[in-house]
């Protein structure tokens, strides 16, 4: 019944068959332990040993554990020190060996025999190695041949079989780790999807608020949001949770949800951030905190009210292109509980004029450029200035494109938000010279003339041109007060002056009932009757006068144009 005899003629194919069978088994199996058991059984039988066992080092490399065995005694689960016994020596030396008589080998560990009652005489042992890594060893005990001795051929064969088993183990471990990683990735993707759903939907122009978030990893610790209130005001926020990864992402989700829910009833950013602070304080862990800017835009007044809790100072860029940084006036959220429930963070008021307010996370300022330099606030400023003519959302995209050009992974989440000031009330060409809002009261006219004269003087208008335009503007305002608002003193008038080359463009907006331009006629000069004279004066002085369709289809929008720099007529 000698099945081994590997040196015997005609048996050369049998080890190859064995290796092929084992390889196929390893490749097809999903259960490593079972496959290893089958392999140990096959090897033990093939090499004609009384028993066989497969030991693997644990994660620390301190212990050897029996994962599979074959023979009369089951030692599966048996644990040895990593240096104990013949198997320990084999693993440490990464060398296979034959021990013909264990009693003559001082390295033999008899403890197992004492436990099991088995008598070990000879041992054949080969390490499980893949490249530089040793995973454990396969040990066969007591050769069942007549002389009871393992041969050199047995050792060679066992080493070959061990190598293929070791490779199978490594592959199985790797694919298991991959599966686990895939599961984690899928979960992260789901988390990212939910995070993206927390961001507001982009709104087309002329909506004045636009945002952008680009996570450095799959999930983001940054967020932004904006939504409209019933009265037309727009709440907006941008925040950055300290730290990265899934814990930051979870706190981000919590803070963003709090903002969205509480922001609908608390419309003062200072109080809103104070309430969110206390909510975060109640449950925040591991010293995490949130830096956050919350604001409310009143599009009618073109004003922003802002609270900044420890966040990077937002940048306001006025119509002339100058920047102003709005420093934080409160610490980040989630650090210190405010004692009184009605306590509020300090607020800042900002008149947007024709400028824009930019909020951003430190992933932008600390972003890397292609030469390794850091983007910094100066980088943002110069890029916003370069792209000043683009629509607001495109200016944000230009910043992100610059950071992406470096072709390196982002260092941190990149988040930006812009709040655009009111654009011209009816004209896109030229530069703004003046923008004033005033009530429909005769008493205001002198102030308006004064403002107009200063604005026109700054535009290098000649004295007589200025005088004529002041007359036309004052007359047009007078018409609005008298004929559009019917002398109601609570109407609103918006006056805008722009200069486009040699043209001064005057825009006058009111919110009264729409006037039929065909009913507005100049006075017949032959008749010496008061009234209608204003329109005549305007027509005499200005080169073009027209009623334009008013924005929002309410009220009236009058545009008057005068070419300057010519000889006054």
């Amino acid at each position, binding site marked *: 019944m000698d099945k081994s005899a590997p040196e015997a003629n005609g048996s050369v194919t049998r080890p190859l068959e064995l290796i092929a069978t084992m390889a196929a088994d390893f490749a097809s199996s999903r259960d490593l332990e079972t496959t290893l058991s089958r392999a140990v059984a096959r090897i033990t039988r093939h090499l004609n040993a009384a028993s066989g066992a497969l030991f693997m080092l644990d994660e620390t490399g301190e212990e050897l554990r029996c994962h599979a065995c074959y023979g009369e005694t089951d030692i599966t689960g048996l644990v040895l020190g990593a240096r104990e016994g013949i198997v320990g020596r084999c693993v440490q030396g990464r060398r296979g060996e034959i021990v013909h008589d264990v009693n003559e080998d001082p390295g033999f560990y008899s403890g197992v025999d004492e436990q099991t009652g088995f008598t070990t005489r000879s041992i054949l042992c080969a390490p499980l190695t893949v490249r530089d890594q040793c995973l454990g060893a396969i040990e066969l005990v007591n050769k069942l041949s007549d002389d009871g001795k393992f041969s050199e051929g047995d050792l060679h064969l066992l080493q070959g079989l061990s190598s293929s088993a070791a490779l199978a183990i490594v592959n199985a471990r790797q694919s298991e780790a991959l599966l686990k990683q895939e599961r984690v990735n899928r979960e992260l993707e789901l988390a990212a999807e939910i995070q993206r759903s927390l961001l507001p939907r982009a709104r087309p122009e002329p909506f004045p608020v636009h945002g952008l978030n680009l996570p450095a990893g799959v999930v983001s610790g940054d967020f932004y949001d904006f939504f409209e209130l019933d009265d037309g005001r727009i709440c907006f926020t941008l925040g950055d949770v300290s730290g990265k990864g899934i814990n930051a992402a979870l706190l981000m989700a919590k803070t963003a949800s709090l903002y969205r829910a509480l922001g609908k009833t608390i419309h003062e950013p200072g109080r809103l951030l104070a309430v969110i602070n206390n909510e975060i304080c109640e449950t925040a862990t591991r010293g995490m905190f949130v830096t956050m800017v919350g604001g409310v835009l009143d599009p009618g007044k073109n004003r922003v009210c802002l609270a900044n809790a420890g966040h990077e100072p937002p940048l306001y860029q006025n119509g002339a292109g100058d920047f102003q940084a709005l420093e934080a006036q409160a610490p980040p959220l989630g650090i210190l509980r405010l004692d009184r429930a009605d306590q509020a963070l300090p607020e800042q008021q900002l008149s947007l004029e024709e400028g824009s307010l930019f909020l951003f996370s430190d992933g932008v300022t600390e972003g890397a450029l292609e030469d390794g330099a850091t983007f910094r606030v100066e980088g943002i400023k110069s890029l916003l200035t370069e792209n000043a003519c683009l629509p607001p959302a495109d200016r944000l995209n230009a910043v992100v494109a610059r950071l992406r050009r470096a072709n390196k992974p982002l260092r941190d989440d990149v988040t930006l938000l812009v709040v655009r000031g009111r654009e011209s009330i009816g004209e896109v060409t030229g530069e703004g010279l003046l923008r004033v809002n005033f009530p429909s009261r005769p008493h205001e006219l002198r102030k308006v003339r004064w403002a107009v004269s200063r604005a026109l003087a700054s535009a290098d208008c000649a004295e007589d041109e200025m005088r004529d335009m002041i*007359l036309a503007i004052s007359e047009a305002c007078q018409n609005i007060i008298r004929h559009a608002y019917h002398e109601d003193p609570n109407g609103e008038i918006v006056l805008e002056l722009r200069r486009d080359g040699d043209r001064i463009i005057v825009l006058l907006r009111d919110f009264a009932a729409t006037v039929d331009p065909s009913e507005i006629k100049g006075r017949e000069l032959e008749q010496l009757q008061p009234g209608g*004279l204003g329109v*005549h004066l305007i027509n005499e002085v200005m080169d073009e006068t027209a009623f334009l369709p008013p924005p929002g289809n309410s009220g009236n929008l009058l545009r008057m144009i005068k070419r300057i720099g010519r000889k006054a007529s």
Partner: protein
Amino acid sequence: MRHEIRESEGAVVVSFEGDIDLDTSPAARKVLLDCVRRKRSVLVDMSRVTYIDSSGVASLVESFQNARNAGLRFGLVAVSETALRVLKLARLDLVFPIHATLEDGLAQISG
């Protein structure tokens, strides 16, 4: 806007100073109509009028018409450049008798 009324030989002289616009023209109108009611010729000194708009011009026109209907003379005196521009634009520079100085005006009216 401020004003000053002087009874002079042959005419009532009213001087305005400042802006005559929608805000102040009702007051100017009242002053002018009062002067016309004195049944004397009226001279309006406009040397210190810094601005006049269509409502101010309308007050002048209305008072001028009232004076004419009452058989009285009504003239403008030393009209500032700003006010004259508006009168010219309104083509009223040929309607109102305009005198370079108060002396000229008084001489014309009494003459």
